[in-house]
Structure formats: C-alpha cells, structure tokens
C-alpha cells in the first residue's frame, strides 16, 4: 500500500463526523472512567502479575499446549493444534462437513478472523452469523472493525437503523434501545437453531484445560449454551498455567478495555459440558466440544524474537487504542488490518496478518508513550514500533529520507545548510519572526501552524560572547543544545546558561557537537543514529564535566539511549554510559541543584504548563518544573485539561502526517485557550515550535509560549 493511499484513508476517517464525535468523546472520557474502575485495585501490581504469569506460559509454551490438550481431552473435549492458519481452517472445514453443520453462531473471535473463517465457510454454503452487536452491524455494512472492543464506533444510530431496516425489511427507528431490541429478536432465532457455536478465548488454562470468555451482551453465553457443538479458536499466546493465574488478567481486562470493574459475564468451559440435544424430549447429553489452537509460524516468530517476545503479554484489552492521540482521531480502519488495530494492532498485524501493511501504519505512531502507561501487559509498545521502523528502514531504504538524515549526520554539511537557510528564508518570513507559508512540498510544515525562522546567528557563535560571572563555581556543566537551540531558539539557550550561572555553575559548550540523532532513530535509521552518537560522545567529552544539560527532552532522552547502540564492554559503550549518566533535562537538573527558590519580580502572570511526552513519560519528570514555577514570585500556575496530551509535533511526524498532527494541535490550543493564560510554559523546543506555531497561525498573540528556563530567567531578572 502506498503512502498516498494511506493518507487518503486518513482523510476519509477524519471526514467521518460520527467517528470523530463518538471516538473523540469516548477517548476523552476514558482516562477518568478507567481510573474510577481501578479504585481499590493496584494497577501496577496487577500488570506485574500479568507479565509474570504470561511470561511463564510463553517460556513453557510447548508444555502449556500439551497439558491443555491432555486435560481438555480428559474432560471430553477434542483439541487440534494447527501449525498454520491454513491448516486450522482446513481442519474446521472438514469438521463442519463431517458434522453436517448448516448454521453457525459466533461470539467475538479475533483469531477466527486470521483464518478468514466467515468467508471460507460462507463460500461453502454455511450460514455464519456474527452475534456481537457491533460485529453484526459491521457485517451488515460489509465493513471491518474500527476498534477492537467497539467495532462499529464509526456508525451513528441513524445509519444503524437504515442497515436494520434493510435487513429486517421492517422500518427501524433510530432509537438505540429499540435497535438493541431488534438485534435481540433477530439473533434469538439464530441462536436457537444453530448447529454450532464458535467462541474466542480470552484465556486458556493449561492445568485444567479450561477456556475463559468474557462478554457483556450475553452472546458468548448463548453460543456456549444452546448449540450442540461448540468450537473454540485461540492462539498459543492465550495460555496461563493455572486458574489462579487467570485471575490477574480478568482484573485488568474489563477495567482497561471498557472501564468496567467486571463485565456482565465471565464464562469458563472445561471440556464438554451438558447441552439439550432434543428439546421436545428434554434429552441432555455432553456437547461436542472442540478447541483449535493456532500455533502458526507468525506466533512462533514473535516468541523467537527477543525484541518482540513481550507481545505475548498482551491481554487484548485495547487500552492502547483508547489513549492514543492518533487513534482517537482516525480510528481503526486506517490501521488496515481487518483484525487488530492501534498500537498493538500495528505489531500484531506485522507478525500475524500483513507485514507490508504494518510497515506503512507504524508511521502513524507519534511515539508519545501514553499507551505504555496504561497497557495491561506492560508492553513497551512505542519501543517495539520503533524496532519495526528500524527493520523497515533497513529492508526498504527511502532515498529522500536517507539523504535528509545523512545531511543532518554530516555536521559540517548540516550546519552550512542551516546558515544558508537563515538567509534564504527571507522571502517567506516577510520580516516577521514566524513563517506562515512555505512553498510546494514543504507546505505541510505550515498547515495549521507557522514555522519559526532560523536564527541569523547560531548559538555556537553567540556562546563565546556570553559573560558568565560565577564566583567560586560549584561545578562545570556542558550544554548540549541540539539543533533547535543552536539554530532557532538561541535566546532560550542563553537563558539556560544564565539560569545555571545564577546558582553557581559554569557552563561550557563543546563545539563539535551535532544533532542528537533522535530524528534518525525516529525514522528507524540506526546507522545514522549510531554515527551521531559517536560524534557527540567524543564531542561532549562528558568525563570532563559534572553534568550535561539539555533543554530539549527528546535530546536528553536520545543521549540516554546511547549506551544501547554499542556492544557491551566496548570502549564506546563505557563512554556512552558516562554521558548518559550525566545527561539531564534543564528543569530536573536546575531543581536538583537547588534552583528552586522563592525568587521573582512579583509581577502577576498567569501560567499554564504543557507536559512534553519525553519529559513526563520517558523521564517521569512532572513535579520539578511545577515546583520551580510555583515558587517563582508572581507566577500563578493554572493546570489545563489534558495537560500531558501530546501536542502533535512528534519530531518529523508533523511533517509526515500533518493531517493527524493538525487536529491534535487544535485540541491542545483549545485547552490552552480555556485557561486563558498570559504564558503557556513547556520544556521542549519541539512542543514550543508546534504550539507557538499553532497560536500564531490562529492570530492569538496575547498568549506567549515560553520554556521553563526562559520564564525563570525573566522573572528572576537574569536577562
């Protein structure tokens, strides 16, 4: 699939107003509802247990399969372990033929989607009915799920009424409670007449041969209670060892999935249970119970790759979708896979559905890290998506991206380009500090946002002119400016120096430093990222300093990643570790070095604070900057709604996907305006670029954008 085709799908999703409204409202309300559902339950401890029990099962997967088979069969079930999805479907087709199954009712089974179950059996002349309301609706529409847990979010009640009218040949009113009744009525007959029920498992317990299904609508129970045959389809990632282990998953699954403390039903089937085989004579017999376990190469590949093995810890709760800024705008269809969507869907699709599709959609990830916070299995989703990017960049090198990154890595070339740009931009800045329109292919940069112009004199040339009056310095700090401080926000870089001087530290700027390598890492270009790491490790010479300060959390994060680029024990690794251990973000370092003082000019200024993703989620710095602000005389700090939501910048993301980035920014601007501050403060130059640009493009000039270092220097009269 081409990038252009993906962009068209993104536009289509953004144009669907029902999706925007429903998904937007859901995602907005989700965090608070989820938190409420977790009252009295320790989420972190729960997910640690989930990781523990799922890890155990993954490490002993062959034993799990064997035990489950033995125990389920001992209780009258039949178990088939399929070595491929084709083999699984062939087995099921034969079973359906042999048992003369004419009609099937299904409760949700994502694994069955991997087999193209419905399509294959429908072509064989079998009536296959999806019974989950959302699945039923999208089946009528001929569409695929837009969300793992709520598949028909993109349709409104009017559209559902039309689909029902067409299906039942009777007029259906667009009233949700009536539509639910119609579904009940239509489906009831299907349940009572079906020859076979099909279920997916949330969990399979090896020690007892038990499968678990959790539902709200009751269709799962119908499927398991009424037909004489019952087929479970699930993958080898669903195993846990014991019934006791299963508890942890059902503690997190409803709370994370739908913000419920528990769903209406949790059903556990152990082997063949009773069923009525002849209702007229009230004959009761054991049902025909089958379990098809997917042990296909895709799943084995996940287990075999150390970087991705943790995918087996996923409990399919969908929380990663519900907090994703990109997903909340575009929904699941953009993710393309007919089965799995969102962050985890990107990963699952790569291994289980289509690596090609996954290679495009992984770009939709902003790397903001919110999914990681709520993930029920504690998966490092952004890091794994980054690994996919790396794989993809190696397998399909992109000449233009590669050139750009090569140029950034070549320090001299990049620096001369920036100097040339400082002059060449003149026609576009029109003498203003922001560029509102850029020509041709660069226009995406200025969609809904102005771009700051490039400083006439880079910070590296200004630095020697700064007079640092520090008597008896307490220590020496090296400043890592990164590209934005060096070439755009030179005043901010100067304020960082002045702030640190004010608490007794001298600052030095090692001149051979280059781009931190974050853009290269973000695009999966590990080669250039490692090159840049070497340049900076040598240039910064951290061994000579007490600390290394950066005023850009993305740079700080990247500096701290350096050790992972080099082999353990190597000289470069050791040096990278020294640099990583001394690298701090400005506000954290300034606070820790005693910078939090009750100082300031006392002039009233209303401030709101935007948390940047790398600072609050990767480095967990959320309080230090607030303490610094609160203790500054004159500053009144008022929190905005969703203050830790991404601003949509995401490095090169806003250039690659302005369609998604722009509405995320729109939301951020809305929340800032609600507070109506004099200044919105943040700690990331990337966020500054994005938010300043957004305010400027909307003609809002009474709200200033400042870095913590800037407002501190200003209020303390250091400038």
């Amino acid at each position, binding site marked *: 699939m081409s990038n252009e085709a993906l962009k068209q799908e993104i536009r289509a999703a953004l144009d669907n107003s029902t999706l925007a409204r429903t998904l937007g409202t859901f995602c907005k309300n989700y965090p608070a509802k989820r938190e409420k559902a977790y009252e009295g339950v320790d989420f972190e401890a729960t997910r640690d247990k989930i990781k523990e029990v799922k890890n155990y099962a993954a490490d002993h997967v062959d034993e799990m399969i064997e035990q489950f088979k033995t125990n389920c069969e001992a209780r009258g079930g039949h178990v088939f372990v399929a070595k491929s999805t084709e083999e699984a479907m062939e087995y099921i087709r034969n079973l359906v033929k042999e048992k003369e199954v004419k009609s099937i009712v299904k409760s949700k089974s994502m694994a069955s989607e991997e087999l193209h179950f419905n399509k294959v059996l429908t072509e064989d002349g079998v009536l296959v009915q999806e019974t*989950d309301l959302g699945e039923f609706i999208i089946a009528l529409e001929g569409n695929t799920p837009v969300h793992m847990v709520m598949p028909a979010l993109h349709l409104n009640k009017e559209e559902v009424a039309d689909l029902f009218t067409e299906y039942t040949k009777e007029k259906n009113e667009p009233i949700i409670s009536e539509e639910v009744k119609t579904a009940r009525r239509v489906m009831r007959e299907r349940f009572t007449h079906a020859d076979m029920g099909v279920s997916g498992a949330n969990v399979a317990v090896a020690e007892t041969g038990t499968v678990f299904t959790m539902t709200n609508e009751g269709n799962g129970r*119908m499927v398991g209670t009424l037909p004489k045959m019952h087929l479970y389809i699930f993958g080898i990632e669903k195993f846990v060892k014991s019934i006791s282990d299963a508890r942890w998953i059902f503690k997190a699954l409803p709370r994370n999935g739908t913000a419920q403390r528990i769903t209406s039903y949790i059903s556990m089937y152990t082997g063949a249970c009773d069923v009525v085989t002849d209702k007229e004579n009230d004959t009761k017999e054991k049902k025909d119970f089958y379990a098809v376990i997917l042990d296909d190469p895709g799943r084995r590949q996940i287990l075999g790759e150390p970087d991705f093995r943790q995918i087996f810890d996923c409990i399919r709760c969908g929380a990663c979708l519900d907090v994703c800024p990109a997903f909340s705008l575009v929904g699941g269809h953009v993710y393309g896979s007919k089965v799995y969507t969102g962050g985890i869907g990107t990963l699952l699709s790569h291994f289980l559905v289509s690596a090609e599709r996954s290679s495009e959609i992984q770009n939709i990830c902003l790397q903001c890290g919110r999914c990681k916070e709520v993930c029920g299995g504690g998966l490092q989703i952004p890091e794994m998506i980054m690994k996919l990017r790396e794989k993809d960049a190696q397998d399909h090198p992109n000449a233009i991206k590669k050139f750009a990154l090569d140029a950034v890595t070549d320090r001299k070339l990049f620096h001369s380009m920036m100097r040339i740009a400082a002059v060449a931009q003149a026609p576009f800045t029109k003498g203003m500090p922001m560029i509102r329109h850029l020509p041709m292919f660069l226009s995406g940069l200025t969609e809904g946002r102005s771009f700051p112009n490039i400083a006439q004199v880079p910070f590296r040339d200004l630095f020697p002119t700064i007079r640092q009056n520090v008597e008896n310095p307490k220590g020496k700090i090296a400043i890592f400016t990164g590209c934005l401080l060096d070439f755009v926000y030179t005043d901010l870089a100067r304020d960082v120096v002045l702030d640190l001087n004010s608490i007794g530290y001298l600052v030095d700027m090692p001149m051979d430093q280059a781009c931190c390598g974050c853009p290269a890492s973000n695009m999966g270009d590990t080669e250039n990222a490692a090159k840049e790491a070497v340049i900076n490790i040598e240039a910064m010479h951290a061994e000579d300093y007490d600390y290394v300060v950066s005023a850009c959390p993305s740079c700080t994060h990247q500096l701290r990643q350096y050790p992972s680029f080099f082999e353990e024990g190597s000289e470069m690794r050791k040096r990278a570790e020294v640099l990583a251990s001394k690298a701090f973000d400005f506000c954290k370092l300034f606070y820790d070095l005693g910078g939090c003082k009750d100082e300031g000019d006392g002039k009233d200024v209303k401030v709101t604070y935007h948390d940047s993703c790398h600072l609050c989620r990767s480095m967990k710095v959320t309080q230090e900057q607030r303490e610094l602000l609160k203790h500054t005389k004159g500053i009144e700090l008022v929190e905005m709604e969703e203050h830790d939501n991404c601003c949509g910048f995401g490095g090169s993301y806003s250039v690659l996907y302005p369609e998604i980035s722009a509405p995320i920014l729109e939301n951020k601007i809305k929340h800032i305006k609600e507070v109506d501050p004099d200044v919105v403060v943040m700690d990331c130059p990337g966020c500054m670029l994005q938010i300043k640009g957004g305010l400027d493009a909307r003609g809002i000039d009474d709200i200033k954008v400042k870095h913590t270092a800037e407002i501190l220097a200003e209020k303390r009269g250091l400038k």
Partner: protein
Amino acid sequence: MNLFTDELYERFKKNLESVNGTCVRASKATLGKAIADVFTEAGIPDVCVAETPLLKEAGVADALKDAGIQTYTDHIRLHAETAKGGVSENQYGIADLGTMVQGRDDIDERTVATMSEYYVGVVKGSTILAEYDDMFDVLAGLPQMPGFIGFITGPSRTADIECVSTVGVHGPIRLTAVVVDDE
C-alpha cells in the same frame, strides 16, 4: 460456611445496583413469595424454574403458580424460548462486584440465566464471598473444575452503538438477585 453479615449484604446490593441489577433479601420461608412479587411487579406472565433442593423446599414453583404465573419446571430448554422469566440458584456471590456465580454444569440453570428476559438468581447468604480474589481462591482450590462456571454481574449490556450504554442485548434485560438468609 461464611459469616454473612448485614454489611456484606449491603455491599453486594450496592454493587449490583450500580450495574442496573436489583437485590432483595428473603428467608427460606419468604423466598417463594419474594420471587413471585418480583415477577408480578414486572408483569412477567410465564417463568422457567431450574429447581434445586432449596427452591423445591421453599416452594418457589407453587408460589409462582399461586401468583397466577405460568410456571415450567421441566423441558426448560423448550419453554425458555417463549417464557419471559427465569429462576435458578447460584453457588456463590461476590459482594465487591455484585456478582452471582454459577458454579456447576447444569444446563437448565445455564439456560434460564441466559435466555430469559427477566432473570432472578437465588444465592445463599453464606456463600457470598467478600472479594473477587476470594472467588478465585475457591475455584483454584476445587479438586476439579466443573464443566461450566459462569460469573453473572447485572443484566446484559452493550455500548456498541454510539458508545451509549444500553441494557439488555442477548442475555436478560432485567436481573434481580434474591439473597437467602441461611438457617
């Protein structure tokens, strides 16, 4: 046997009510009438009862018949297709969630709890456990898992259309738990 306190009952009731269920308390002597009252008030004309020694002893089927309700105690699967009400006994309760737990493989009990529009579940006070974890401890300690275990928490529900929470899809539309004080 657990110590069943008023506090535990209130906790069970409150949590069940928070998910659109209702809850009443009865003694063995008043059980039949309590159930009949629930159905009479809701205007349910016909009910399937999956009988157990407790329900028989308490005369539930007779109480329903006395209240003028068409009552079935056999051929449950057949009658459940049309009867609007269903009654069965559950083996456990979980106070912290308002959950009733079917802890055994009895197809009639499963059928009435699944197919009826109005389901009344009976649970003995002494079998109500405080927490979800207590329930899993009990299940994990069983010598053998029954063929079926079902947690039931309130009526069936969906939010599949426009994310609007709506009660009553494929399973019961209304649900009442009758907690029986042990003697």
